[in-house]
């Protein structure tokens, strides 16, 4: 995106609303925040996937022991 990113600034005391361009510092901070969020999200997604895999593995082992799907679900 090459267009200028902007923010709507609404001063709650004066009632004045302005459309202002983001500063270079603000843009840089946003990139930092977005990257940090992506890392945290990836970690969360990996944890969820690992838990699902462990659950599937456990269910397969229980099935091999002779438990029915209903019995496994009841655990």
């Amino acid at each position, binding site marked *: 995106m090459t267009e*200028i990113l*902007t923010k709507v600034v*609404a001063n709650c005391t004066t009632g004045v609303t302005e459309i202002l361009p983001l500063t270079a510092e603000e843009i840089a901070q946003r990139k930092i925040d977005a990257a940090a969020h992506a890392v945290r999200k990836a970690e969360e997604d990996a944890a969820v996937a690992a838990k699902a895999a462990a659950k599937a593995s456990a269910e397969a082992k229980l099935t091999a022991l002779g438990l029915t799907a209903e019995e496994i679900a009841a655990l």
Partner: protein
Amino acid sequence: MATYTFIQSATAPSGNVVSFDFTSIPQTYDDLVIIAHTRNVSNNYGGYWIVLNGSTINTNLSAKRLGVSGTTNNNSTSVETVWNMSGGGNSSYFATTRTYFPNYTNTTSNKVALITGGQVGNGTDLVQQVTAWKWAQTTAITRIELRTDAPTTDIFGQYSSAYLYGISKS
């Protein structure tokens, strides 16, 4: 009986608006509420951060979300945005979110909020969320920013708007 008092609104014109920034918030109410109607110019779900007092997100923000998209759970326990700034990931539809900040002027405890939101979009992809949100700073809230989480792709579409209200309990 609680009284809602309109404080200020912000509406996105056409262009690349990536933030609604409420500044100089009066310290004369008990609680605050922001009602936001947003759409994303990108055809994806996207989201936005709530940032207090011009500070940074890392180390300050934590949140837990119960969310549903269609029939699929979309929960999260990580640092989280206000999920789904547009209807069903479609730029034509608006999502509506209500964020309630209790006791925003106190200077002794971290700030918290309850976020509820959803959209009906095109009627086939109902999205709902309830998020418990915490900001680990004790400073009174004087500024609230709604900031898209991916500024190169998630842009508040024209007519997206946010309304700030003060709540007086008596």
